[in-house]
């Protein structure tokens, strides 16, 4: 039995490696996504093109303006003196934000009256606008503190809780990305390997050999697991070495987590491949699963902010557990007992899906 499974595993690795398409799937997308996400897709907003519309030339106004000019978050690119120019500049996207100080700003500040600071934002990019608003609020806050303006009499700009300006979003993105890319690779390899055999007719050839369904399943599951380990380690290493993401947690726990996660994603890949008849269908199936699974994983948006019903859905999403766990391992040295809360659901998902796909395979024979 071992010999048979071993032959199957060797063959799986050989086909994966010798097929240029499979090789591409394993190597290229993870690297491309890593580079894209780590560099391009950052939540940090820098060098925001800022326009100034200052109708007040007294000292407090000039001081506030110089604070904006000195901030790395903003680049002052234009000055305005009438509402018409302001409107045109914003709608043409020459500036992302405009700081407006009215004629009475300095007088109000000096008199201790509530002073109005207007920040005009390009609301079409709501996400960026929100972040820019927060940066502005931070600058105003420090300005306020320094001038010992009482909060109740302070500058009025609405603020909302968002990121700390020092917060490096790569710390948040890269551990999640490690999980996502591992998931994509393992699910895709599993689903494609069975679908390819089915498409080429070799699956029937396998079924007439003495291999039992369980053995085929093992032979098909072990290679993607190995690839999942390699992928997770490579990406984690890149995150730590090149992007300076801390890895505080237990490295053994990390590997246990990857193993449990691989069991669940491969199970999902197996279910997809037991339904799909061709490689195209398998790829489609993988995307039908992955798109909502990523949205509901907490990778980009916090699960706590989701409506109740979709929070419930994340409970059957192995990616959600793994992202929570991986962030814990990277950033806060999560304990084994806390990790277990995330590990067992992944194992349950894995066992259920693998059992279901074995049953599907066996049923197909009847």
């Amino acid at each position: 039995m071992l010999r048979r499974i071993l032959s199957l595993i060797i063959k799986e690795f050989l086909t994966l490696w010798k097929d240029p398409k499979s090789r591409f799937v394993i190597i290229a997308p993870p690297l491309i996504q890593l580079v894209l996400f780590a560099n391009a897709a950052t939540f940090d907003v820098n060098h925001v093109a800022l326009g100034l519309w200052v109708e007040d030339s007294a000292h407090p106004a000039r001081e506030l303006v110089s604070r904006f000019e000195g901030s790395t978050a903003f680049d002052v690119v234009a000055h305005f003196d009438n509402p018409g120019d302001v409107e045109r500049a914003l709608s043409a996207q020459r500036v992302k934000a405009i700081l407006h100080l009215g004629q009475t700003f300095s007088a109000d500040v000096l008199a201790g009256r509530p002073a109005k600071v207007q920040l005009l934002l390009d609301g079409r990019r709501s996400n960026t606008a929100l972040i820019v608003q927060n940066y502005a609020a931070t600058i105003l806050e420090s300005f306020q503190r320094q001038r010992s303006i009482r909060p109740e009499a302070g500058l009025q700009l609405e603020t909302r809780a968002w990121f700390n300006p020092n917060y490096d979003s790569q710390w948040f993105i890269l551990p999640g990305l490690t999980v996502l890319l591992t998931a994509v690779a393992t699910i895709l390899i599993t689903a494609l390997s069975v679908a390819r055999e089915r498409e080429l007719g070799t699956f029937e050839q396998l079924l007439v050999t003495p291999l039992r369904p369980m053995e085929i399943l093992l032979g098909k599951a072990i290679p993607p697991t190995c690839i999942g380990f390699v992928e997770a380690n490579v990406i984690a290493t890149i995150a730590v070495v090149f992007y300076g993401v801390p890895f505080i947690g237990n490295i053994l726990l990390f590997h246990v987590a990857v193993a449990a996660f691989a069991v669940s994603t491969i199970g999902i890949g197996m279910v997809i491949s037991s339904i799909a008849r061709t490689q195209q269908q398998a790829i489609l199936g993988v995307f039908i699963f992955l798109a909502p699974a990523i949205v509901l994983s907490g990778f980009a948006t916090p699960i706590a902010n989701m409506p109740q019903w979709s929070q419930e859905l994340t409970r059957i999403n192995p990616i959600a557990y793994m992202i929570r766990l991986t962030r814990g391992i990277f950033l806060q040295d999560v304990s084994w007992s806390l990790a277990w809360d995330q590990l067992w659901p992944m194992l349950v998902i894995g066992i259920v899906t693998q059992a279901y796909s074995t049953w599907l395979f066996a049923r197909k024979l009847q």
Partner: protein
Amino acid sequence: MAPAAPPIVVVDAVTKRFGKGPQATIALDHVSAEIRPGQITGLVGPDGAGKTTLLRLIAGLLKPNEGKITVLGQDSVTAVTTVQHDIGYMPQRFGLYEDLTVAENLDLYADMHELDGTVRQERFASLLAFTALTPFVERLAGKLSGGMKQKLGLACALLSRPKLLLLDEPSAGVDPASRRELWRIVRTMAGEGVAVIWSTAYLDEAERCDSFLLFANGRLLASGSPTDFSRRVDGRTFLITVPPGHKHRVQRRAAADPAIADAIIQGERIRIVLNDGATLPDAAVLGGTGLPQPVRPRFEDAFVSLLHGRTAPRSSPAVPEESTSTAVTDGAAIEAHDLTRDFGAFRAVDNVTFTVAPGEVFGLLGPNGAGKSTTFRMLCGLLEPSAGSARVAGVDLGTARAAARERIGYMSQRFSLYGELSVRDNLDFFSGVYGLSSTRRRQRIDWALESFELGPVARQTSGSLPLGFKQRLALSCALLHEPRVLFLDEPTSGVDPLMRREFWARIGALAEQRVTVLVTSHFMDEAEYCDRLAIVYGGRMIAMGSPDDLKRRFVSDTLPDPTLEDAFVALIETQGTKAAP
């Protein structure tokens, strides 16, 4: 048949390559030909010979790399739209919409050809009557039988009243009765002056054409009138009678004889083609009895003798001599008892019962969709029967499927190998999954590389090998674990006649070593190699016996020497409406 009319298609030194640089495959190599109106021109050759490429070039769907094609006086490339107006093209898998009815399919094609009003209705009526599809207009195209689908495809291609009709393997997998009907329809069209190009891998169809173009590997090997072509081997074709049980041995001896160009098993006799100028060897020397009887030459005889002249003479293919265990089992090797299989409300296989003795070559013969594949799949454990039982190599498939699998070898039509892997890797893999011990594994792989002549290509990627090598590799993989029963699913459909002979010589040698062989086929030629046949039609077994038995049943004054196809058609007719699709 004087070529009175000027040609409707002129193919002038056309070369078509796919891909670029040294890796390009040459699909057609400096091919020149002429197609005349009112004739059926057969485009004959094995798979990959370039038949479809030529049809697509004529239809203006491809551009030649070199040379020029003139269709109806116009260039096929520059005047593509005007040319296509007069062409009816029926691709191999016809573009029928399976979820539309027969009438809706016709409507769609009529819309595409902008047929309106009375013209449209008239043509529908005449084509439906012509193809005998009138009772089925409301049926979904997907629910038609293979033969009816082809007829509908043909009707759609004929809607625009083309002057040139291009048919790409219209008869592949179609039952013999429908095949005859297709010929009748197309013959009528040709009679009305339409030029018909009929591509086929069946060599017997070449004989029915007015002229033929014979292709192999992109080259035009021969052309002209099929009767003239067959006449090349006139007086050189004979049948040798052999004592029962000796046909494989006699065939091997005959094939090795330097005087003989071709020797094949035909029922219980051996058909031989003498080399040009050779004297007929004594039948007794070859192991036959009586005098060799002269027979009318066939297209295939001339083709094989032509191929023999071109390729280096090959002694009989290396046969895996004494390699397979000769463990004699008592009783039947395959027993099917009341096998039945339902798919929903559809009964694909209905109470099929037969037994196959050890060492017998047994054929399941029938058109596509008749139930032969379903029966086959149940017997090799790929499908569970709805009712009935099956025993293979003494093991009940219902209770000990894994044990049965260790005793069977399986080779599918598509030579299901791992194309990305090398020949050696494939052999390694299959010997591994059959659980061979490491010494035995090494022995068997060496045996496969040697006796199937795969040694020189052992390191090559199997997907890039020519069809013949792939077939040998597939067969060797199926034999690595020395199975007692070998399942072959349409093993030689679409391969050239030499490859088919080589393949069947190996199968014959295996049978002599008491390996049982179960074959499915819709090729009548393949059926001749079998010891016994079960004819499957409409899910039921309608006849069983040796090929000669089946033929003898239908000897009559009008048909003194019926072919297997004649027998098949007669059998279907005697079945009446019961087995109608």
